[in-house]
């Protein structure tokens, strides 16, 4: 059997909860899959749907969006706004054929290092099972150019 597929996953996280949760996973020396790259933002409210598209444009096989639990947002409301956008954007991606399994959303607090590590393992396995996002990669190849900024 050939080497197993290593999916490329980009995560957009808020600095106050999920990023800190990932730090806690680190200080607790929890072990998890090395497939996810984190992009730190001040708040889930700052996570634009365009970021998800940029990650896919870069060739990501999966995307994770994560922030503070409802009620815990450092900026009080950012995650409530984010949740509405995600609801709409998720429906939109689904409708255009981008599988909902490839773009995941979660709440992870600064205390949930274990949840962070487990979630990373789960989504890595899920996306590994889905395989590379060849349909989207096809679109990228068609442009025959380095993704521009």
């Amino acid at each position: 059997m050939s080497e197993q597929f290593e999916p490329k996953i980009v995560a957009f996280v808020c600095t106050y909860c999920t990023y800190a949760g990932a730090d806690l996973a680190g200080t607790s020396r929890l072990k998890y899959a090395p497939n996810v790259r984190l992009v730190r933002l001040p708040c889930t409210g700052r996570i634009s749907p365009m970021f998800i598209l940029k990650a896919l444009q870069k060739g990501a096989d999966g995307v994770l969006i994560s922030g503070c639990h409802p009620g815990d947002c450092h900026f009080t409301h950012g995650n409530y706004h984010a949740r509405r956008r995600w609801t709409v954007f998720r429906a939109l991606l689904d409708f255009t054929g981008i599988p909902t399994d490839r773009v995941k959303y979660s709440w992870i607090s600064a205390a949930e290092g274990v949840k962070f590590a487990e979630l990373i393992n789960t989504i890595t396995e899920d996306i590994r099972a889905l395989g590379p996002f060849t349909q989207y990669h096809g679109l990228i190849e068609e442009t025959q150019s380095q993704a521009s900024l």
Partner: protein
Amino acid sequence: MAKIGVFICHCGENIAGKVDTSRLAAALGDHPGVSVSVEYKYFCSDPGQESVKKAIRENHLTGVVVAACSPRMHEATFRKACAEAGLNPYLCEIANIREHCSWVHSDGDMATDKAIDITRSMVEKVKRNNMLQPIEVPVTRRAMVIGGGIAGIQAALDIASAGQEVVLVEREPSLGGHMAQLSETFPTLDCSQCIMTPRMVEAAQHPNIRLLTYAEVEHVDGYIGNFKVRVRMKSRFVHMDKCTGCGDCYLKCPVKKIPSEFDCGLGKRTAIYTPFAQSVPNNPVIDKTNCIYFKNGKCKLCQKACAADAIDFEMQDEFLELEVGAIVVATGFQVQNTAMYGEYGYGKYADVITGLQFERLASASGPTAGKILRPSDQKEPEHIVFIQCAGSRDPSKGVRYCSKICCMYTAKHAMLYAHKVQGGKTSIFYMDIRAGGKGYDEFTRRAIEEDEASYLRGRVSKVWEENGKLMVRGVDTLLGRPVEIAADMVVLATAMVAQPGAKEFAKTIGIGYDEYGFYNEAHLKLRPVESSTAGIFLAGTCQSPKDIPDSVAQASASASKVLALFSKDRLEREPVIASCNEATCAGCWGCVLACPYNAIEKKDILDRSGRVIKQVASVNPGLCQGCGTCVTFCRSNSIDLAGFTEKQIFAEVMGL
């Protein structure tokens, strides 16, 4: 052309033990725009920081990426080092290859690949970082304290005693709040008036405190360090500069049967009145709705009686515009109206009263001069039933939360009753006895063991009148049987709820509130006295139910936050804030609505003749906290967030 320095820290073995730092340094060294890519054992050490500084100077670096531990650890350290080497500190970013990489992955090769991605994406971000300057905001060194109960008074005195000016605003005619209404206070049973009134007088006489009673905050504008507050001075119809507080006016007032708010309806007052004998200030006010003159244009007996000529029926409300640098909100609570418990008979039977009414009965300055007498017939009750959680911890009828003080004051009531009425019997229905606090559990034990309060664990289902007695039917769940008690008085431990209009007031001053109307702290654990709005602090029961020690502690904490704010002329803030491109903004106001801090204002763009040609959003840098929610909303990408611009984030993603 970018000249980025990449500094890869081994963190001893913490990083280098897993990540192949040489491969990482080599990979980044080949990356476009990177001038320096070096590794070192501990970059956070003094020699490590020195080597970063040296590299910045020697290579004229335009940006720095330190691949090391979490930015939450050492971002500040390295940004400071950059600043010392003459590089704008916001041109430095941290690539987290320890917590997010070396510590959490088993496979060294894959960890190294990941470390390269993380570091490279940070290099791409840094290339697009802008030089930022900390925001400086001037500070008006004057605080406003809203609410003149014990919390407000404490905060005002603390700030004033530290030498700063305070404006203390109280909407009632006198300072004092709820604490002034109390009889004795747990757990020491010292008389509330004895400890409260000296503080009221001290606040009124303090040279740094400007006291505004019978005044309400109507509008708050501005931001931390620079608030503008409009206060309505309600007309007292008595000139405070002339009034001597002799009391001749209210002795002459013919309207004598108005239920006294201060005595919770158990006593009476006149139409021109001071709320209580020890009021501060002790100048009366005229209650317009009950005054005969205001009703039918005749009377003015008080005016005739006033030797100082202080009474003025033509007096109008006045408005003050005040500039303050910080605000302490100490607006307190109210007792929940227990009318929803029809089965307890509150409002139907005169001898079913609230805990606060019991306080007035037990108070030496109260309507019965401290004797426990039934409101219905002024007889001494022989048996009192107390019902705890009459509103609290009752999601179906009352409120879900615990009001925190009721267990303690009910035990206190039982004690006061035992001390005042020889042989009086006490039965207390309770759900749990919550007596956490210094000397609190000892206090409730004393009520049970020395003052023979009989505690029954269970709820009361019904109170009704029979042969001049109040029949109380409940259940003792510990014995597992129904209980029926013939009582002479029933006291309900009602819930503490938010002030009426608390939510509207929160909107007026621009702070958050919870589902109950209590004001939200910025962080329940770590920032419990700050509101979500910078420069506005919370004290006392407006935030959540509290007892006196907690209220006072929070008030002093708020005061210390205010004093810390006032310790400098100017505030420095992180420049991670949004700004709006006025040329492209379409003025749809989505950002205005989405902003949790009301930091986005509507700005008119005028032509030369002063005509409004368009309206655009404008971010107030004093109020913006940098969450970026507005940026994501903006369809035309007119708003961007410094430090996390679209350009930076796109580059970061593309660098992965």
